[in-house]
């Protein structure tokens, strides 16, 4: 009499298969984060992490909240559509706590950022050769930046 019948080979095979499956599921459970695949083939919490980055530029609305006088002065002139932080730089820390001083932009270099001539610039933009126009000094002594007049 043989030690066991032919079909009993299948039990051993099934046992091995089940053990393999369990091992696979355990490894998968250990390695794959539970939030993986919630929205697609990626870790859903990555979105939360990316969103948690601190804001550096406060945004125009935050500036206008307090500085209504400047906003009013700028409303109708050539610089009306320019955001405060274009010239003044990032101000989120100042907007969060007004005691933090807002940096003052250089009154000549900050103008040159836009108003130096270049053939690639659109013709409608007012440009000037700075050294021919005025050797040195602040542009803002003649041209108030919040209400620029030529």
């Amino acid at each position, binding site marked *: 009499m043989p030690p066991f019948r032919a079909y009993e080979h299948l039990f051993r095979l099934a046992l091995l298969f089940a053990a393999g499956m369990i091992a696979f599921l355990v490894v998968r459970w250990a390695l794959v984060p539970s939030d993986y695949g919630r929205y697609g083939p990626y870790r859903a919490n990555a979105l939360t*992490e990316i969103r948690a980055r601190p*804001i550096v530029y406060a945004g125009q609305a935050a500036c206008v909240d307090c500085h209504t006088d400047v906003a009013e002065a700028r409303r109708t002139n050539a610089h009306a559509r*320019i955001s405060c932080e274009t010239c003044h730089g990032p101000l989120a820390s100042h907007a969060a706590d007004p005691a933090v001083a807002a940096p003052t932009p250089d009154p000549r270099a900050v103008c040159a950022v836009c108003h130096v001539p*270049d053939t690639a*610039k*659109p013709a409608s933009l007012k440009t000037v050769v700075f050294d021919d126009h005025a050797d040195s000094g602040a542009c803002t002594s003649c041209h108030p930046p919040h209400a620029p007049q030529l």
Partner: protein
Amino acid sequence: MDPDRRTFLLETAKLVVLTAASAAAWDFVVEGAPERAPGYDDTAHWWAMLIDVERCIGCGRCVQACKTENSVSLEPRYFRTWVERYEIDPDDPEHPRVTSPNGGYDGFPPSEKPGVKTFFVPKLCNQCADSPCVQVCPVGATFQTRDGVVLVDKEYCLGCRYCVQACPYGCRFIDPETHTAEKCTLCYHRITKGLQTACVEVCPTGARYLGDLKNPKDPIHEFLRTHKVQVLKPQMATHPKTYYNGLDGAVR
């Protein structure tokens, strides 16, 4: 009684289906309800960027703001957004001279040759709807969010550089500190809080516009309908969501 072949197959099939179903249900139990960002529904947006080439003056404010907002490496010089200046000599229109000194961070030196067609082109991630960089990522570290922004999971990224060479627009690089892939996030931390991207915020001429294609009231729809708008490398079938108005044929 030994089961016949038919019953055996039927029982096996039941077992497989029920196991799969209970596994799926168990996943849901473990996970709980999906968490959401407070006050932001990512299924209600589909972000796009509109760039008006004719308005760009090459001041480089966007490049500076992007680097400041997102702590992008200053040295070595990597960029999430940068500005190129094209100079097309009418005697040799096939070979435009494209310069981008430090990505336009400090502006541009005046164009030297007179009688040459020149203009600025701001570049950034095109936020492709069918993005090659997402397709090639072997670990699922690069993905498209439900509001249409292509992002990188820095925890998952291996730094294998597949995505860097897959991007037809050269918009990716390897972060020199973390050695993982880096790219424009469309300021995801800002736009999900109702703010503009840093580059749009500081652009003095309004050459950049952040649009929401799922918002029927967004003026971007009117603009796209009334202007001749182009995307970069349409032949790549990446379906970019960065649209260029007034783009010259020389731009690649």
